[in-house]
């Protein structure tokens, strides 16, 4: 699904990623843990195609060179990033935006555009699964949403757009324990043999609910250790400094 070889990324002449390697197969869920400033969010940004980074190395998604793909094309090809800080966009209605977005993705997949009635039905179903008040959907996008509402809205978008490869960038930050469970359930119910996940987090807490197949430790722009769930538990006990 995703093959990253010797990836480096710098911004404003500061090197952030310094030769990162990772390989994610269909159906796998990989967790990336690391201290502040290790390059976790940069990795998410680079994969989403964000402007401003100088990049070298290889990123292949379903065999194709990802670096050549524009941000919107990546989304249309099934890459989804759940943002650490979802952007507030005044004046843009959440409902309308989601429908436009879904139709762009459907069109790219060669599917028919969804009509308003079917869309509202789908929206109602998916938001109730996540315990989202439907009224939230007629508000302006993320504007005045609480931290939890913003994160739930990201997971809702994931469930509606049905991507193949999902990046969760610190989705657990800012969530209380109830919201965390709901979000984790949302992710778990979406897992299957074909879909892959890259979960970026500081803490083991999220991984208690979303069980990873692999855990990697990112430090100073490189993956310094890889393992299974036990690695996450070890990190929680000993801290990042002891693992290198």
């Amino acid at each position: 699904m995703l093959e990253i070889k010797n990836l480096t990324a710098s911004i404003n002449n500061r090197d952030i990623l310094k030769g990162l390697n990772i390989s994610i197969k269909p159906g796998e869920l990989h967790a990336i843990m690391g201290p502040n400033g290790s390059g976790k969010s940069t990795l998410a940004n680079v994969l989403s195609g964000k402007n401003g980074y100088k990049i070298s190395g290889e990123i292949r998604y379903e065999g194709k060179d990802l670096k050549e793909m524009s941000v919107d094309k990546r989304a249309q090809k099934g890459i989804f990033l759940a943002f650490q800080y979802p952007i507030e966009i005044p004046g843009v209605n959440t409902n309308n935006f989601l429908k436009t977005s879904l139709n762009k993705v459907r069109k790219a997949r060669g599917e028919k555009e969804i009509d308003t009635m079917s869309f509202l039905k789908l929206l109602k179903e998916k938001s109730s699964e996540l315990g989202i008040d439907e009224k939230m959907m007629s508000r302006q996008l993320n504007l005045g949403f609480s931290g939890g509402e913003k994160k739930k809205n990201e997971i809702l978008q994931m469930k509606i757009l049905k991507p193949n490869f999902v990046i969760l960038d610190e989705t657990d930050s800012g969530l209380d324990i109830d919201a965390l469970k709901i979000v984790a359930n949302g992710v778990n119910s979406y897992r299957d043999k074909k879909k892959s996940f890259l979960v970026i987090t500081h803490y083991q807490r999220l991984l208690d609910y979303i069980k990873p197949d692999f855990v990697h430790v990112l430090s100073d722009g490189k993956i310094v250790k890889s393992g299974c769930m036990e690695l996450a538990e070890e990190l929680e006990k000993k801290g990042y400094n002891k693992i290198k």
Partner: protein
Amino acid sequence: MTNSFQVNSKEISKIKTTSKREKDFRIKNLNFFNKNGFPNKRHEDWKFSDLREIIYKNFKKLNTKNTSVKVKKINFIKDFDHNYVAIVNGELHSSNFKFEDKNKIKIKIFKNKNFSQENESNPLICLNHALANKGYHLEIKDNYKFKKTVIIYNLFTKDLKDSILNSRNKIKVGKNSELHTIDFIINESKHKFVNNVYENVALANNAVYKNICIQKDKSQGYFHKFSKNQLLSKSKYSTFIFPSGLRFNKLDLEFNLEGKDSECNLQSASFLNKDDHQEIKTKMNHLAPNCKSYQRVKNVLSSDGKGVYQGKIYVKNIAQKTDAYQLSKAMILSDNSEFDSKPELEIYADDVKCSHGSTSGKVDEDAIHYLMTRGLDKKESTKLLINGFLNEVIEMIKSNSVKNFVKGKLKKQIYGY
């Protein structure tokens, strides 16, 4: 008008005048215009909009001839029930108040009776004083609330070419009465022409007036409007201006809050593209205690578009407890576009709340990125943000049918981006 855009005084003898006073008034104003010509950037009020340069660049001549035109059909809006007044090339054409008590409404052709000797320094107002001989006068008697909106269809016909139209309108809303209007500008001319309007709105005690101004399509019009508005005690004036769609548009709006507890609310949202040039100039005169005014002007500028907002708040010494607010926000999409903002506060009372703010900036790249990660391309994302930026103003319109109508029109303007 001759090549140097002077108006021959013979034009005045062609206008039916009722008195020597009127004729003298017209001639005096014409002389002022001929002496000064179209205003240029040396006039403080025109420093961001050099009209002389714009006229010289786009016109070789201008006809002042007032030809009456027969119009067969006006395409009325079907989105919601409404009364209407139809104006063709500035002239009162027809009206229909089928939803109202007709005894409470007077509509007639405007006749000027005020030949004040006040010296006017705006050459365009002088030109209007000299030549205007058409327009409408709408009067609402006391204690009458309109049941439906009045749409004022401002139709400009196909045959307008290198013309300059001068018209004068007046709206008077009586005590405890309420009127809602929509100025809807339909421009069928594919050619360039100038429209110069002088407008008076007078609100009696406790009157409510709400107005929306919008263009149907993009056009080649060069518009100037001077509007003088009087607010008496406890009256409320609200205006939503969606002025884009013209090549040049200057709205010079003066509000006189003469009665205590009166309120004025002005909001505007524009999308300026290509060579569009638009200026909103306001003068909010707080002349009595305890009045409120609120102004919010939002502009999106693309390619060579130019926008100007000059907003002045004046608070007279007796106007204590004034609450005045002014905000300008501009979103700039291109390095070639320009936005000029000049806020002014002149305050002579000591117990007032006056604030103003002005921001202009580029489109939020992080927001574009967020939208693109959801599959929208750059252009679609930008359009969505433009729409959202301007929608904040439209959302303040209370009636849903009117709101949707305005949204549709504005979307069409942005669609061309």
